[in-house]
């Protein structure tokens, strides 16, 4: 399954990455699974990609860790919203 990943706010800055195209393993069914997969990239990723620290949007709609993922999705991972 291929998705487009976008990063904003704290994770974008700390991981020095704004976007990437990712090929996910077959068992990555939800945003929680995606975060688990990202945490295995190393200590920086393990520190950032916890369900406490990040929020997400799937195809430009706010999601939760339980949100399902589908091939072709645009998934954004970001620190809690703080505009206005």
């Amino acid at each position, binding site marked *: 399954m291929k998705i487009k990943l*976008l990063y*904003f*706010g*704290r994770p*974008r*800055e700390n991981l020095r990455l704004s976007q990437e195209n990712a090929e996910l393993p077959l068992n990555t069914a939800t945003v929680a699974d995606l975060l688990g997969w990202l945490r295995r990239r190393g200590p920086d990723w393990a520190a950032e990609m916890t369900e406490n620290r990040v929020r997400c*949007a799937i195809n*430009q709609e*706010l999601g939760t860790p339980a949100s399902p993922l589908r091939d072709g999705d645009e998934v*954004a991972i*970001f*620190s*809690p*919203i*703080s*505009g*206005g």
Partner: protein
Amino acid sequence: MSASIQTADFDLATELASLRSGRAQVGALVSFVGLVRDFSDAEKIESIYLEHYPGMSERALEQIIDEASRRWKLLGVRVIHRVGELHPHDQIVLVATASSHRADAFAACEFIIDYLKTSAPFWKREQTAQGAKWLDTKESDLQRSARWNHQGAKK
């Protein structure tokens, strides 16, 4: 009903004039302007940096305006959110509502800014002498936003 995301500053008088223009049924104009303060948790703010999610941020503002228009009788809405680097005293955000009656204009203006704070993808990084930090969603903003879940059905 329109939303803009821009680095440029805005002029409230110009925005309100265009919101009223040609709409003689407007009896009430309510506006909220959010400004960069000079202090945060006792630390002097040097600047803030505002980031957004292009594409989703425009869409989120439009969805919030649509929802407000379903709940209240509005004749016009204008939302402007600035992005990029800003300094104390700078204007950050404008929400202006026009209606025949003030109850609708007040409720819609407050609803829009409350929802914007918790559901529109904007992020603030504060720069103080102690360094930079990304702000979290305020607990008080989450509570204010949740108040609207069972309020304000269309009259």
